[in-house]
């Protein structure tokens, strides 16, 4: 019983941080890998090629 409650508590306290981390992570990847604004594209150019993102 106690274990179950503890698990539920951990799951509850973990959801918001996990969601936040996923959104932040995907946001960073979109910026470094996909956004075509020329300043970003030029700065990330070599990385996009080397990391397998579609570049230009």
């Amino acid at each position: 019983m106690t274990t179950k409650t503890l698990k539920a508590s951990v799951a509850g306290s973990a959801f918001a941080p996990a969601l936040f981390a996923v959104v932040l992570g995907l946001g960073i990847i979109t910026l470094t890998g996909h956004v075509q604004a020329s300043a970003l594209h030029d700065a990330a150019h070599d990385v996009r090629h080397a990391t397998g993102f579609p570049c230009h």
Partner: protein
Amino acid sequence: MTPLTMCATRPASPATKTMFSRILTSALFAGAAAGLIAALLQLVFVQPVLLHAELYETGELVHFGGEAISAHPDLPRMFAEPVRDILSIVFTMLTYTGYALVMVALMMMAEGQGHAITARVGILWGIAGFITVHFAPGLSLAPEVPGVAAADVGARQIWWTATVAAAGVAMWLIAFGGNLISIVIAAALLLAPHLIGAPEPDTFAGTVPTEIGALFAARAFGIGMAAWVLLGAFAGHFWQSEGARAEA
């Protein structure tokens, strides 16, 4: 029992704050470390191939002309363009930190379902991550050197994103599905994007010798796999050590 349950429903409970810092700290450490190593490996093994390709992209070198072209032209020395290389290092570290944030959040979900997360298990996570974001899309959209013909970048980005999403779900099903149906669905998710097909150029216009293009793709995959294995192992390690620190 009651205080624990209440604690879980309150938005910024101490447990939530601890989780926040544990996720962010382990992802930042893992992403920065794996990203730095990946960037250095890329500078040594991938960048010279890319710079070589750019000589053909810009027309400075032309092959299949009248005369034989040396396969060993004078390439710029490493760090000849420091700003460009430093930007590459920063963006590689950022990219792997982004991956780490997603991976650590998923690791936490898996741990919540009773799967142990350690540095050793992290190696498997890393391989799964490499397959998801690098190899699965790269199987049909091969890592490309500058100067090759390719379809519209927007169309390729949509295909890339859909393929990565499908491969990610497939990897999770293979790892944690635990039954035959999961494996069958995973196989379908892995195959479908390639059966549908990636956006392809209408005509070929590549100026870069195929030898350079092939070496670039192989190097990009190889360094990518090394970086991802490190990222998984680091993420597992820091997730565990940050957890131990939080409990202490």
